[in-house]
Structure formats: structure tokens, C-alpha cells
């Protein structure tokens, strides 16, 4: 029984760590995409945009 509970606990810890690792990778991917996107936009449109709020 104790072994079963311990095993279930280990399993849930492993699952939690997997979730965290995937989240780290996805967040890092987003951060890299942001930098890449900014580099591309600044190359294509180097002028500063002004926001026209309109009416």
C-alpha cells in the first residue's frame, strides 16, 4: 500500500515537472519569436509609427 501511494506521488511529481518543462519551452519559444519579430519589423519598417486615435 505504502509503495503504491509512494509510486502515485512520484508519478504526479514527474507529471508536474513535465508540465513545467513544456511551459518553459513554450514560453522561451514565445520570447524568441518576439525578438525575431521585432528584428524583422524594424528591418522592414524602420520609421516610428504614430497612433491615430481617430474620432
Amino acid at each position, binding site marked *: 500500500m505504502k509503495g503504491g501511494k509512494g509510486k502515485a506521488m512520484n508519478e*504526479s511529481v514527474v*507529471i508536474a515537472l513535465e508540465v513545467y518543462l513544456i511551459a518553459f519551452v513554450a514560453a522561451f519559444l514565445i520570447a524568441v519569436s518576439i525578438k525575431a519579430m521585432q528584428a524583422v519589423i524594424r528591418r522592414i519598417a524602420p520609421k*516610428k509609427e504614430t*497612433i491615430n486615435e481617430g474620432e
Partner: protein
Amino acid sequence: MNLANLFQGVGTLFYQEPQIAVARILLIVIGILLVYLGKRGTLEPLIMIPMGFGMLAVNAGVLFFSASKTGTLFVDPLVSDTDGLMRILQIDFLQPIYTLTFSNSLIACIVFMGIGCIADVGNVLRFPFTSMLIALFAELGTIATFPIAHAMGLDYGEAASIAIVGSADGPMVLFTSLMLAPELFVPITVIAYLYLSLTYAGFPFLARLLIPKELRGIAVKTSKKNDITSGEKIAFDVIACTVLSLLFPVAAPLFLSFFLGNAIKEAGMIKYTQLIEDVFLYWATFFLGLMLGVLCEASTIMNPKVLILLVLGIVALTLSGIGGIIGGYVVYLINGRKFNPTIGIAGVSCVPSTAKIAQHEVTKANKRAVILQFAMGASICGVITSAIITGIYVSMVPML
């Protein structure tokens, strides 16, 4: 004349089991208390006043449907067959709201769209790696609470749903619990919104406890070179929505809602922005609070798991706050001790509350230190990382 049949709200108290009757009276008192605390501003009034009224009315307004069955005319969340649903839609006055906007997470998505509309992702684009790192550390509660919850007897779906309370994001909690633990979504979501209202009170103490005054007072230099254009912000919205939806399609409605709301604001579509902020967001917030209150019927709340959820909710939020501060310290060390670790608490994505808390604590230590820009960046990234973790849990848990 049978008085119990005439005044059925009172009569049903004597007909039902004593535990249910006591629970009803207790929930009426709690409902009154929520209204009072909402009016005082101790808890968020936008949610607590409708929730309090819903809670007290649903527990007071119980009637006899037949000689052996009691119920209310508010909502029946358990009806699932088509004929029963069509019948109840014409009888229970909040049933259309529940069936058409609540149980399918539409209301959570509309709130998220409103959050997207008021968020400024510019701060994320200025410091993407710093903000993401802090936000990831601030997700400690959503990760660490999962095995703790499972060890306390919850299954994987329930454990993930209560762990998401650590993200301090109400729509996420509602979305996750509807997908993974529908039988517990009412207590989980009510607990989440109650605790989120209390973060304002608790997090400042956590910051003061874990960060010495001299570190809280560090002023962070900001560079004025990187002005972020609206085009960049919209491009970010498009790319992030596409990438995240590709990775986690189960949470695509949430990603669409947030990034669409933000893109509408950045595109300068004032009428749509006003519609979402002034109409949709307040409509959704009002009915969210009211529905949560009305769903707090005594028989729903009298679940032995509720006590466990009460403990785990506070564990999740506390661990997230601690994790955020750890993230702040990590960035402080990486940046050669020139970063304010208090910013870490803003990674817990209760936008904009946690960012304001961080700035308030910093100002108390050093009146000239302004860190709001970094704090808002971390907060908005917290929303994004919460959505990512929600997507992972909702995709992964059903496969376990």
C-alpha cells in the same frame, strides 16, 4: 392550513436533512457577509456583491417540487438530456445564462477578451526574456500544488483544476475546472475568486517577509530607446495566438479571446474596444459573480473535498507568490544586483493588482523608485504563462 407549504423557503428547512438545512443557513449568512465585504471594498465588489446575493437567494428560495422533492427556480446544472434541458430552459430564469455561456466557458473567454483589451503588451515586448522568466517562476504554485493535491486524494483532473488557482487568473480556473473536474467546478471557482480578492491583503506581507528593505528600494533604470509600435504589438498578438493555438488547441478559445481583445485595442478600433471593455467585460463579470453565487446551493457545497480545496487554494497562491519572488531574485543576480526582486511578485498574473502591489511596496522603501513598467510586463507574461499551463494540463490530463 399547512404553514410549511405556505412559506416553503422556511418549510423546506424542516423537511430537508439537518446538515443541508444548517448548510443553507450558513450559506445565507456567508452571502450576506460577501455583500458587506464587497461594499466595504475588502473583497472585489464587482464579483462579491452579485455572488453574495446569488448565494443568499438560492439558499433561501428553496421550494417543494413534489411531496418528496425540493429545488429552486434559479438553475439546474445537472440536467443533461435534451428534453429535460429544453423544459428547464423555460422554467429556471438563469438556466439560459448557465447553459449557453457558463458551462461552455464562453463567459470565461469574454472576461479574458476584456483583460486582453485593457492589457498593454508593450511591456512584454520591451523585456520579453526577463518578463517570461519571472512569470514562469511565479507559476510555482500551479505546478507544485498538483502532486500535493493528488497526495491528498484528488484525482489528476481535480488536482490540476485546484493547482491552476495558483495562476491567480479567474477565467483560467473556470475554464480548467469545467474541462477537467466539472463536478467540483463550483467550489473550485468560488474558492479561487474569494482568494484572488484577498491577494491584495496577503502579498504585501509576503514581499516584506522575503525581501529586505534595501533590496525593495532598488531603482531599476529603464531604457527609453525601445519604443514599441502598435504594429509590433499586433504582430505579437498574431504570432503568439497562432503558435499557442498550434501547440495547445484545447485552450485555443482562451488564446483567441485574449489576443483578439488586445489586437482590437492596438488597432485603434475604439468602438469595439468600448464594446468589449464597457459592455462585454462588465456583463460577463456581473453574470459570473451571480452564477457562482447561485450555484452555491447547500447540496453542491456539502462535498467533503471542499475543505481540502480550501487548503490547497491558499497553498497554490502562496507558492506562486514565493515562486515569483524567487524569480525576482534570479533576475536580480543575473543582472548584477541591479534589478528589484519585488518585481517578481507581479509575475502572479492578477492583472493589474499584483503589479500595483509591487510598485506600492517599492515606493514605501524608496519613493523615487519606479518599477511599474517591469511589473506590468511580468504580470502580462503571467497571463500568457497561465494560459500555456492551462493548455498543457487540459491537453495532458485526459490522456493520463
